[in-house]
């Protein structure tokens, strides 16, 4: 790989997309063609954490049409432990955008809660960083 190594700043020309960029995919058969979550109040950062609301899940589960198999797969994963959006996408082998749409459905039904994203330029306090450093050392 010696090509394409010019080190020039990013510039999105018209030729950015080629075979290396991966396959072009039809938008989202699993989401009924939707590419954006129905909920607009929640932003699904890659490391946003998802928790289940069991009562709402139970209620929603009674409506047979509420979930597709992919929704259920997400719920099952969250039941094992709190998961991030990125982990859910990797585990289900679904593109992140699809997972965001599916999670949006679950948020709308009140079945999951999403952690607030860490605001940019704000850092956890020193104690947390110390914990992280100690934890890394102990790996």
């Amino acid at each position, binding site marked *: 790989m010696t090509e394409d190594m010019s080190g020039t700043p990013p510039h999105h020309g018209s030729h950015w997309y080629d075979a290396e960029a*991966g396959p072009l995919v039809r938008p989202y058969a699993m989401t009924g063609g939707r590419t954006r979550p129905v909920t607009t109040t929640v932003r699904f950062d890659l490391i946003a954490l998802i928790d289940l609301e069991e009562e709402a899940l139970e209620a929603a589960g009674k409506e047979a049409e509420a979930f597709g198999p992919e929704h259920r797969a997400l719920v099952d994963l969250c039941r094992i432990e709190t998961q991030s959006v990125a982990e859910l996408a990797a585990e289900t082998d679904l593109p992140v955008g699809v997972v965001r749409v599916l999670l949006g459905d679950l948020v709308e039904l009140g079945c999951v809660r999403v952690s607030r994203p860490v605001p940019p330029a704000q850092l956890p306090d020193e104690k947390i960083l110390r914990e992280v450093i100690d934890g890394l050392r102990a790996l």
Partner: protein
Amino acid sequence: MDSAPSDRRVDDALALKILIAGGFGVGKTTLVGSVSEIRPLRTEEQLSEVGTAVDDTGGVDEKTTTTVAMDFGRITIRAGLAVYLFGTPGQDRFWFLWDELATGALGAVVLADTRRLQDCFPAVDYFEHRSIPFIVAVNCFPESRSYGAHEVARALDLDQGTPVVLCDARDRDSGKEVLIRLVEYAGRVHTARLLDPVGTEPVG
């Protein structure tokens, strides 16, 4: 953290994001894999997001998307505290993905190969312009001539104080040390900003 397992609250849980950047083939995947359980992640972007913004608020989405693969790994520090590593896509044209990745990131590791140092210029520029704390980790390939950290810092024209560390991305302990140096540095940068919000001098 005294919540019972049956009462997990995501607001108590904390997830930190660290980016692993650098040129194609410099060892990003290797580094993520050596310190964490690595998994491939598929993300996808709509073509219209590239270049000048297309204002499309129509309800029908028939735009084509492209799939971009990247690596990510998780390091569990304790219950409710995890560090997520994201290997940024190596090709320059996927820069538009970085903005999302960089949002809220604790900091970044720019991996460098001394035989192709210029490959990491774009990443260095990116993080410098956005004031995201980063360190440069020189992945010491066996066949490459060894350079000192100072030489690399000078060659990259780094802001004073930006740490440069030598590492072996294949080695778990070495990878851990890189992450530790980054977390320490990010902590110092943020503390300095709190004390001197208008100051532009980087800390050493």
